């Protein structure tokens, strides 16, 4: 029977299944960070268990750490303890930690792929809902809770019910001034924040095939924002070229064997999906959110719609139905996060900021997704462009995406952000968030108000 890529990977990882029980699913890779792992290791210790496959795990620091140049000096005593705890846990259980001085510290979903740790056909989990990012490589990757982190540490398996499958087909190619961020925001606005609940998505279409790995990661990253367990893209030559010679990627004859296998992963002709959605992107415009969840998004030229049950959203964002989103004044601009903190994003931003000035009333943070992204940006002179434009180029981390560290948008202030969630208070208590692409955020920072790169 023909299978789609999701079923192929799933079936290859069924360790055991008893009748009427969930599947015992083999997990190939686990990524750890400081916030959702401490309790998992504590449970392991309490039960006197060991880590079954430490070689299939990597850890880094991202969520609660400072992004200032003196970041080794963590002022928040809780965050400091969290970081120390991860250092101790990884040392005790023999797990590779990419610490500040390693050259590879970064947001877990930026660092993992950069190292070639993420490979096609694998099952990959992390105590973080944006783990679907790794789906860009044709891996089945999803977020789990801390209890499940314990399960994977101890057994390299978890219990899972078989998810439904959904095909999302993007029709057409990307117009100028738009990116994969606008594509995924368009999908979420179309099907809603629970539109793919219970499903794993396969993304297809000519725009996807033409896209870099960085752009594919941005797209898969936000799968959770339409409720999907995971989202993935079948691997192709672009995937293989990206992975070739990466530290964790297979080498020599192993590499050839791996490619042969990876080429069999694509969905079979006439395979079945539980759900199929088509999104026409041939006339896509830059997208911006106006409300308090990612489905409350419109094209930059549209007016804010009047929808039922959204009183709380209008009130919180201080916007009204019938108003334009364009030209709303902003106080902050944030470039970064596991959605848009990669070198390609920084190049787009530098291209727009070059020779321009961030508006006087706007404070702009540019936070690279990893140490490697930061170094590459410096090599290319992007840091110079950022500082000449008046933006602050900081050290890698999750930063203002979830405001766990000191990087917060002050109460009542409005931020245009390349991150993934515009939830109430997400970027700091009382902060207002508008999600958008790197190009739209950079253009808005210059203008001091929401606009697209086309409007400059």
């Amino acid at each position, binding site marked *: 029977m023909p299978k789609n890529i999701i079923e192929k990977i799933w079936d290859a990882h069924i*360790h*055991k299944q008893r009748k*009427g*029980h*969930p599947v*015992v699913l083999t997990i190939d890779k686990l990524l750890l960070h400081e*916030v*959702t792992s*401490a*309790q998992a290791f*504590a*449970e392991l210790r309490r*039960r006197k*268990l060991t880590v079954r496959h430490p070689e299939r795990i990597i850890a880094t620091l991202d*969520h*609660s750490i400072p992004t200032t140049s003196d970041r080794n000096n963590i002022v*928040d005593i*809780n*965050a400091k*303890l*969290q970081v120390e*705890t991860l250092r101790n846990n990884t040392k005790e259980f023999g797990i590779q930690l990419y610490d500040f001085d390693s050259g590879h510290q970064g947001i877990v979903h930026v660092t993992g792929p950069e190292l070639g740790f993420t490979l096609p056909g694998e099952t990959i989990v992390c*105590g*973080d*809902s944006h783990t679907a990012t790794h789906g860009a490589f044709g891996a089945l990757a*999803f*977020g*789990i*809770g*801390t*209890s*499940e982190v*314990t*399960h994977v540490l*101890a*057994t*390299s*398996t*978890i*219990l899972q019910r078989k*998810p439904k499958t959904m095909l999302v087909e993007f029709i057409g190619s990307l117009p100028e001034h738009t990116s994969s961020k606008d594509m995924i925001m368009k999908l979420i606005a179309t099907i809603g*924040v*629970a539109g793919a*609940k*219970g499903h794993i998505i396969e993304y297809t279409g000519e725009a996807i095939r033409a896209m870099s790995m960085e752009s594919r990661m941005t797209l898969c990253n936000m799968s*959770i924002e339409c*409720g999907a*367990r995971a989202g993935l893209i079948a691997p192709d030559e672009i995937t293989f070229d990206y992975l070739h010679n990466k530290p964790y990627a297979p080498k020599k004859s192993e590499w050839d064997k791996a490619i042969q296998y990876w080429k069999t992963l694509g969905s079979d002709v006439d395979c079945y999906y539980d759900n199929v959605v088509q999104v026409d992107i041939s006339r896509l415009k830059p997208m911006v959110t106006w409300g308090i*969840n990612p489905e409350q998004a419109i094209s930059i030229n549209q007016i804010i719609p009047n929808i039922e*049950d959204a009183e*709380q959203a209008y009130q919180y964002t201080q916007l009204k139905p019938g108003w334009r989103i364009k030209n709303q004044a902003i106080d902050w601009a944030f470039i970064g996060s596991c959605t848009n903190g990669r070198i390609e994003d920084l190049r787009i931003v530098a291209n727009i900021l070059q020779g321009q000035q961030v508006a006087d009333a706007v404070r702009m943070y540019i936070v690279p997704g990893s140490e490697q992204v930061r170094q590459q940006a410096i090599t290319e002179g992007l840091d110079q462009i950022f500082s000449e434009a008046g933006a602050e180029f900081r050290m890698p981390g999750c930063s203002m995406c*979830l*405001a*766990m560290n000191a990087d917060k948008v002050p109460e009542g202030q409005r931020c245009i952000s390349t991150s993934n*969630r515009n*939830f*109430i*208070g*997400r970027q700091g*208590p009382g902060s207002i968030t508008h999600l958008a692409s790197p190009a739209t955020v950079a253009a808005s920072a210059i203008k001091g108000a929401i606009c697209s790169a086309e409007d400059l």
Partner: protein
Amino acid sequence: MEKFTGITSQAIGLDMHHVDTDMIIPAQYLTQIERNGYGEYLFQRLREQDADFIFNDLRYQSAKVLLTRSNFGCGSSREHAIWALMQAGIRVIVAESYSDIFYNNAVKNGLLLISIEAKIINALIEKSKQAMLMISVDLHEQFIMTSTGERFSFDYEPFRKACLLKGQDDLDYLLEATR
């Protein structure tokens, strides 16, 4: 994991769709390395912003049953959301639907999530606002009953039901399956 068989308690109604885990517990309270100490931060932002927010109403402070609408627990995978709810006394949630990761996290901690159709939920939430509404939950027989005598049955996955009734967690199962 705590065993769960049944409960009778006052219900508290949170009349919202898409309650995300950032609302349930904001990220700034996730810098602890323990499983305890989250209950007091439950819905912290909403409680700060709105004095009339239902979780500020002392009349509901002993409620163990939470009534809410669709897609509850969407967003971040933080299991802290489950810990915060349970440490604030919530043992059962009755809603239209839940996000996937939140659902998975709940069953691993002994928090019972019941799905019931929208119009019943809406009616129950309305009742809980007007007067003290007591709800009895029977997992064994899979029904809930209100103090006004209405009875609603619910579906529940047999495997998960057995785990909850016995207080058996996944780790023992997986250790045995992978031995």
